[in-house]
C-alpha cells in the first residue's frame, strides 16, 4: 500500500490528466451500478460481451492510420459501405450460410481497397486536415452510396421488381434487407458457454505466463516486474476459481450469452496481425511517417505511398469489421447501418486512452469495453435518476461527441503548449 502510494506520487498528476477520459468512463459505469439497482450483472455481461464481439474489429481497424500520423480515420464508414455493397450483391443472388458470408468477405475486400486508395489519395491532398476530411468523406460517400442503391439499381442496372430486396416500384434497395441464413453465420459455427470460455482462457494464459517465467532464459527480476507478474497471476487465479464456482453452482452468470469462438478468433488474429505488422519494415515506415514526414521522406521512405497503404489497410479491415457487425445484427439497415460506425468506433478508441498520434491494441480493446459499458448503463441511469430512459440516450450521444471533442482538444492544446515551450 505504502509503495503503491509512492509510485502514485511520482506520476500522480500526469497519470490522471493522461487518462482523464478512461477514468471518467470507469467512474460513470460504477456510478451506474450504484444507482440503477435493477441491472443484474449477468445481463450486463451478456450485453457488453455481445457488443464487444460486434464492435472490437471495427475499433481495431482505426489503429494503423493513427500510427501512420493520419489521425483518427472517421472514413472507415467508407469501408462499412463497401461491406454493405458486398452483402447486397451476395443477398441478391440468394447465396446463403457461411459460404455466402465468406463470399461477402471476398467481394468486400477489393471494393474497400479501391475506396481506401481513393480516400488515401485525398488525405494526401488535405495534409494536416485529415480528420475533418475523413469526416466529410464519410458524408460524401454516403451521398454516392445512396445514389447507387436508390437510383442506379433499378434505373441503370435493371432488376426484377419481384425480388424481395428491391422496392415494389422496381427502383432501389429496400430500407432494410433481411440477411437470411447469413445471420449469425460466423457465430453459429462454434459457441462456448461464457464461464467455460473464461475458465479456459484464464487457465491457458496462466500457464503461458508461468512457463515464460520459469522456463524463459533471462527475465528481469526487479521488484516492479515481479509485482506485475504476481498481480497478473492473482487475477487469473481468481478468475479460474470464480468461473469454477459458477460452473459448479450453476449461478446466474451461467446465463450469460455464449461466446462465438470464430468472432473471437478473428479479433485475436487481427490483434496479432497488427502486432506483427508493426514489427515489419512497413510497420516501421508507418511509425516514422507518423512521427515526422520530412525526416521520413529524407530517409528514403515514400511518404505518400505509405500513408495510402495505411488507409487501404484501415478501410479493408473496417469492411470486414462491418461484416462481422452485420451478421451479428441479422438485418441490414441499408441506409443507416454505416452512418454512426465512424463516430462510435473513434469514441471507443479514445475512451481506451488513445490519442490522435498514439494507439495500441490494448487501448482499442479496453476502449471498446469501457465505451459500451457506458452505452449500456446510460439509459439505466436516466431511468433510475429521472424516470426517463430517453434522457440517458441523449446523454450517451452527448458523451460520444464530448469524448471526441475533449480528447482532440486536449491533444492539440497540449501539443500547442509544448511547441510554445520549445520556442
Amino acid at each position, binding site marked *: 500500500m505504502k509503495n503503491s502510494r509512492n509510485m502514485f506520487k511520482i506520476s500522480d498528476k500526469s497519470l490522471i490528466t493522461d487518462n482523464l477520459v478512461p477514468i471518467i468512463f470507469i467512474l460513470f459505469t460504477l456510478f451506474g451500478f450504484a444507482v440503477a439497482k435493477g441491472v443484474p450483472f449477468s445481463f450486463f455481461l451478456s450485453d457488453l460481451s455481445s457488443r464487444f464481439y460486434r464492435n472490437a474489429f471495427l475499433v481495431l481497424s482505426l489503429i494503423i492510420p493513427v500510427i501512420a500520423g493520419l489521425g483518427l480515420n472517421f472514413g472507415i464508414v467508407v469501408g462499412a459501405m463497401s461491406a454493405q455493397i458486398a452483402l447486397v450483391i451476395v443477398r441478391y443472388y440468394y447465396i446463403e450460410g457461411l459460404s455466402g458470408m465468406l463470399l461477402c468477405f471476398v467481394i468486400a475486400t477489393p471494393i474497400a481497397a479501391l475506396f481506401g486508395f481513393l480516400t488515401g489519395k485525398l488525405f494526401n491532398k488535405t495534409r494536416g486536415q485529415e480528420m475533418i476530411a475523413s469526416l*466529410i468523406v464519410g458524408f460524401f460517400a454516403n451521398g454516392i452510396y445512396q445514389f447507387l442503391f436508390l437510383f442506379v439499381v433499378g434505373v441503370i442496372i435493371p432488376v426484377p421488381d419481384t425480388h424481395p430486396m428491391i422496392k415494389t416500384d422496381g427502383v432501389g434497395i429496400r430500407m432494410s434487407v433481411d440477411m437470411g441464413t447469413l445471420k449469425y453465420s460466423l457465430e453459429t459455427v462454434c459457441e462456448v458457454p461464457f464461464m467455460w470460455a473464461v475458465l479456459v482462457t484464464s487457465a491457458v494464459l496462466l500457464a503461458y505466463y508461468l512457463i515464460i517465467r520459469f522456463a524463459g532464459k533471462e527475465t528481469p527480476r526487479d521488484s516492479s516486474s515481479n509485482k506485475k507478474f504476481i498481480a497478473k497471476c492473482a487475477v487469473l487465479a481468481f478468475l479460474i476459481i470464480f468461473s469454477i464456482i459458477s460452473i459448479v453452482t450453476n449461478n446466474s452468470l451461467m446465463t450469460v450469452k455464449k461466446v462465438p469462438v470464430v468472432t473471437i478468433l478473428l479479433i485475436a488474429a487481427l490483434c496479432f496481425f497488427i502486432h506483427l505488422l508493426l514489427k515489419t519494415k512497413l510497420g516501421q515506415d508507418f511509425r516514422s511517417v507518423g512521427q515526422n514526414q520530412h525526416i521520413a521522406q529524407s530517409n528514403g521512405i515514400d511518404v505518400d505511398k505509405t500513408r495510402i497503404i495505411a488507409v487501404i489497410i484501415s478501410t479493408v479491415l473496417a469492411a470486414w469489421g462491418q461484416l462481422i457487425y452485420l451478421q451479428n445484427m441479422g438485418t441490414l439497415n441499408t441506409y443507416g447501418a454505416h452512418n454512426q460506425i465512424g463516430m462510435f468506433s473513434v469514441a471507443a478508441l479514445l475512451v481506451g486512452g488513445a490519442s490522435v498520434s498514439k494507439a495500441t491494441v490494448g487501448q482499442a480493446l479496453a476502449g471498446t469495453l469501457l465505451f459500451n459499458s457506458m452505452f449500456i448503463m446510460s439509459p439505466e441511469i436516466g431511468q433510475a435518476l429521472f424516470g*426517463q430512459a430517453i434522457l440517458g440516450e*441523449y446523454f450517451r450521444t452527448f458523451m460520444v461527441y464530448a469524448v471526441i*471533442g475533449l480528447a482532440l*482538444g486536449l491533444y*492539440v*492544446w497540449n501539443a500547442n503548449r509544448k511547441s510554445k515551450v520549445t520556442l
Partner: protein
Amino acid sequence: MAELTVKKDKRESFIQEIGLPTVIIAAFYIVVLIAALLLKLSLPVLISDTLRRFGMNGLLVLAMVPSIKSGTGPNFALPIGIVCGLLAVVCGIEFGLTGFGLLAFSSISAILISVITGYLYGKLLNAVKGAEMTIATYTGFSAVSLMSLVWLMVPFTNKKMGWLIGSGLRETIQLDAVGADGIINDLLAFERFGIKVPTGLLAVFFAFCIMMWLFFRTKTGIAIIAGGVNPNFAAASGISIDKNRIIANIISTVLAALGIILYSQSYGYIQLYSAPLNMAFPAVAAVLIGGATASRASVSNAIIGVFLFQGMLTTALPVANELFTGTDLSEIMRMIVQNGIILYALTQVRGGAK
C-alpha cells in the same frame, strides 16, 4: 503582401478569382433551370421559393464570413449559435410573448446568450490553433446533444411547446400558434408577375450584409483581416490576434443565433433536438460555392453562394421529382454537392506536413 499580388492579377485571373466551384455550380444551376423550363414547371413559383430560401439561409451563411476572415476557418461550430437562438425563442414563448414582441425579445436575448458562448468558443479556438475545423465540428455536435438534454429537462409549462403527456419540449414547435409564422417575410411583401417577394426577410438579410461590409472597414475589422491573412506579420505590428479571433467568432455566433430565428420564422417551425446537428455543413458549402476558401471570404461570397446553392436545390427538387418519381434525387444531390465542395476546399488549405 499576399493582398498586393492578388490585386495585381485581379483582372487576368477572373475565372480563378470567381473560383472553380462557383463556375461549376452556376453552370449546373443554369442546366437545372433550363430543365425546369422544358418540363414546364411554374417559373414564378420556383423564383418565389428561391427568394424565400435565399433569405432564410442568408444569415447562417453570412456567419461564416467573420470566422474565415479571422483565420479560424469556416465556423463548423455554427450549431452553438443556433442553439443559443433556439433557447431564446423557447424562453420567449414560455413568457407568453407573441408576434413581433416574441421576435424582438428572442433576438435581444439571443444576442446576450451568444455573446457569452461565442466568447468561450473563441477562447477554445485560441487554445487549439491548427486544428480548429475538426474541434469546432465536435464542439458544435456536443453543444447540440447537450442542449437535447436541456430541451428534455427544462421545466417549461407552456402547452404550445410541451408534449401532451410527460415533461420536456416537443421536437417541432409550430410558430403560427404564437403568431410568429413568417411575420418578417410578410413585412412589406408584394407580388409581381406571380412572384412573391419576401421584402422584410430580404431587407433584414441585406441590412446585416451591409453592416458586415462596413464592419470590415473599421479599425477592428481591418485588424481582424490582417490577423487572418498573416498572423506573424499582424502580431509584429502590434495587433492582438487572439483577441481579434475571439471578436470574430463572437460575431459569427451571434449571427448564427439571429440567423436561426430568421430561419425559423420563415420556416414556420422551431426544430429542437438533433435538427441543428448538421446545419453547419450546408452553410459552409454555400459560402465556399460563393467563391470563398477556408482562409478567404467576403460578404459577396456569402450572398452569391447562398443564392446559387439554395437556388439550385430549390429548382432541382421539382425537376428531379418530375423526371424520376419516387427517389429523392435532390437530397442525394445536396449531399454530394455540399460535401464535395467542402472536400474540394479542404484540398486547397495550405496544410503543413508534420
